[in-house]
């Protein structure tokens, strides 16, 4: 059992196990260096890589590191950290339960550390809302909507679903994604909480390290300059397509929209920019942009990495700089840094649009 709980520390049963295992969390953080170290790693890796790192061999350490990681996240208390952390824990859980579901070896014993679908559905009180069908599952619409809220892609939108008699048909893979969201919700639930001083005192160093990692991350996100000449080749090409009025598949549309939002363009500016293209409905653009920005969903989406761009065939016209960077945002940052500040003309200023002062002056 202990191994199962260590693997899935968000389960109710795991919480109970922690309660019996560690009489007192304050003592653990003070005395158990291995647990604290693993907890720190969980959070740091979550922020940096969106994963939770290598599990420790000893189930006890692994299991106890989860509540301690939650304490760490709570000490810092920032929304973005909570989101990233929960997303990373959920991604890890997803990988594990997907592997468990696919594991069909006959050697499964009663003592197995595998989690089955039944158990997971029961854990989240989904046994009534989710029914198996001949070619997948049906999920009740009231259950589907909150779990699909943060999934990216038009195919998740209710309007594109074969909703019948209150149920949304989903494939097995889709059900797994929905379960990942259920896990994420469970992990986010209650975070951040108030941390008693005695516990916080022992974790100050670890908390500082997480703060630093976060700060570095923030720096890279604070670009607010729109200079299309310096865009990476992939984004230039996508922008070009939009302005030629071409119909883009949604991964491409997502990539360029996320990029523009990440470099500081507002929803209105993006809508304006796309208006030339009749295949981009304003409502849709608004919906996507707000979604990416995290206004209408708890998650902010970032621009896809070069690897993702490549896998979708959106990486085109690579140049020298492309060889040295892992991410279109990194490309753009380098180009901005290299350029002389005075030479940078923000596109939005050039057009006199999106400038508040000018708008209100001409708005009468």
């Amino acid at each position: 059992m202990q191994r199962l709980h260590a693997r899935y520390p968000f389960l109710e049963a795991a919480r109970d196990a922690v309660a019996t295992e560690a009489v007192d969390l304050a003592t653990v953080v003070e005395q158990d260096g291995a647990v604290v170290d693993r907890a720190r790693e969980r959070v740091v890796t979550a922020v940096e890589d969106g994963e939770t790192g290598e599990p420790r061999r000893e189930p006890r350490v692994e299991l106890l590191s989860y509540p301690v990681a939650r304490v760490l996240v709570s000490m810092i208390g920032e929304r973005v950290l909570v989101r990233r952390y929960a997303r990373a824990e959920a991604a890890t859980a997803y990988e594990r339960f997907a592997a468990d579901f696919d594991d069909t070896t006959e050697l499964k014993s009663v003592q197995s550390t595998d989690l089955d679908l039944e158990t997971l559905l029961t854990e989240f009180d989904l046994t009534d809302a989710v029914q198996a069908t001949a070619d997948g599952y049906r999920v009740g619409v009231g259950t589907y909507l909150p779990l699909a809220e943060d999934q990216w892609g038009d195919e998740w939108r209710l309007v594109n679903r074969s909703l019948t008699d209150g149920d949304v048909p989903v494939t097995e893979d889709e059900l797994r994604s929905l379960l990942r969201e259920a896990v994420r919700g469970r992990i986010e639930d209650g975070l951040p909480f108030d941390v008693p001083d005695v516990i916080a005192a022992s974790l100050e160093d670890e908390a500082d390290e997480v703060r630093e990692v976060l700060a570095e991350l923030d720096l890279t996100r604070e670009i607010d300059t729109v200079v299309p000449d310096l865009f990476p080749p992939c984004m230039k090409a996508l922008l070009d397509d939009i302005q030629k009025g071409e119909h883009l598949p949604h991964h491409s549309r997502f990539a360029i929209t996320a990029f523009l939002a990440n470099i500081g363009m507002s929803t209105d500016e993006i809508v304006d920019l796309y208006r030339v293209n009749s295949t981009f409905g304003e409502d849709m653009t608004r919906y996507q942009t707000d979604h990416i920005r995290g206004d209408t969903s708890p998650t902010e989406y970032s621009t896809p990495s070069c690897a993702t761009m490549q896998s979708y065939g959106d990486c085109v016209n690579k140049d020298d700089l492309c060889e040295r960077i892992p991410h279109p945002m990194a490309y753009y940052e380098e180009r901005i840094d290299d350029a002389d500040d005075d030479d940078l003309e923000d596109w939005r200023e050039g057009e006199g649009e999106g400038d508040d002062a000018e708008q209100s002056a001409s708005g009468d």
Partner: protein
Amino acid sequence: MEERTRAYLRGRFRDHYRRTEITPPPAANEREWGFIPWTEGPDTTMVRHRSLLELGDLSEFLVRKRPRHVYFSAGRFRDPGASSMAAKDWQSADLVFDLDADHLPSVTLGEDSYAEMLAKCKDALLRLLDFLEDDFGFEDLEVVFSGGRGYHVHVRDESVLHLEREHRREIVDYVRGIGMEYEELIETETVAGLGRKTPTERRTLEIDGGWGKRTHDHLLAFVDDLLEMDEDDALDRLQEFDGFGEGKAQAALNAARNNREGIESGNVTVHTAISQLAERFASRAVERDNAPIDEPVTTDTNRLIRLPGSLHGGSGLETMRLERDAIADFDPLVDAVPETFTNHEITVDVSRGGEVELGGDSFTVTEGDQSLPEYVAVFLMARGRAEKEKE
């Protein structure tokens, strides 16, 4: 509106509430209540953030306050009488839909009569109910004539009461067909090629439900129409579609003739011309079948909604719950006229005359002092088109 008119309406609203039994919504004491009194001036201030506890017994309250408008919240709260939304502590909310003639694309404001607007609204209501009953499978539905320009539907199925704003927006978009993408209605399957042929893709429209089914219904109806026509008519019909020249029209017609079964099963790979037709019918399905509900009413989980059974202070008509099987025959301009106002005539001074259809009659109202059936007089006074004549 002059004070003597207000006084008259107040008094008659009270008479109405004295003789009418009002059924409150379920969990009435967990809801916020609000009302607009008969005050001077066009700008009306709502008294809100009241709990039923504060109002007292509903019927007794209505008789005592004889308000111009009465509302209750879709939301249920732990402390409905608290003065801020946060302090109310939201628990859940009915899922509410509002169809208002002002928002219907089919309505031409200023041209359509009140009766015409309401008829168009009822068509939209029936389309909306199609979605709610078939697609969503809702069972606890309450349909209400608003007393003004439209209809409300209150859904109270347990499974959706917890949904938040963003989730409700998905429901709005579904019903309105916003964000529907033809490509997403298509399932793609790779099928092995015959003999030495390379594998091909089979693309199938999802025909079991959702907008895929609606698209398919329209497509199939069209195909069946085509098959009944003679060759020339069919080709002409097809060429009415943008981008359909002679060649493509012929190809589509042939595909329809040779492969109706394929089309019936949703297969759009039978010919590219069919696939293109299907795509056009997806937009057409949205145009024809969508229910143009007023989005904010559905997404706002704190919204106040007019109380069924109460009188609408802008028309003097009753806000009425409708049984499901009574909707088809319901005529708001006859059935929602309160009985209280049907028995005698009163004298009013009309400032803005015109045609008034009400109570199954049509009145050509002239300007100036005159005696009219009370419900017509009340309607005109409530709309600000007449004053109670001076005593």
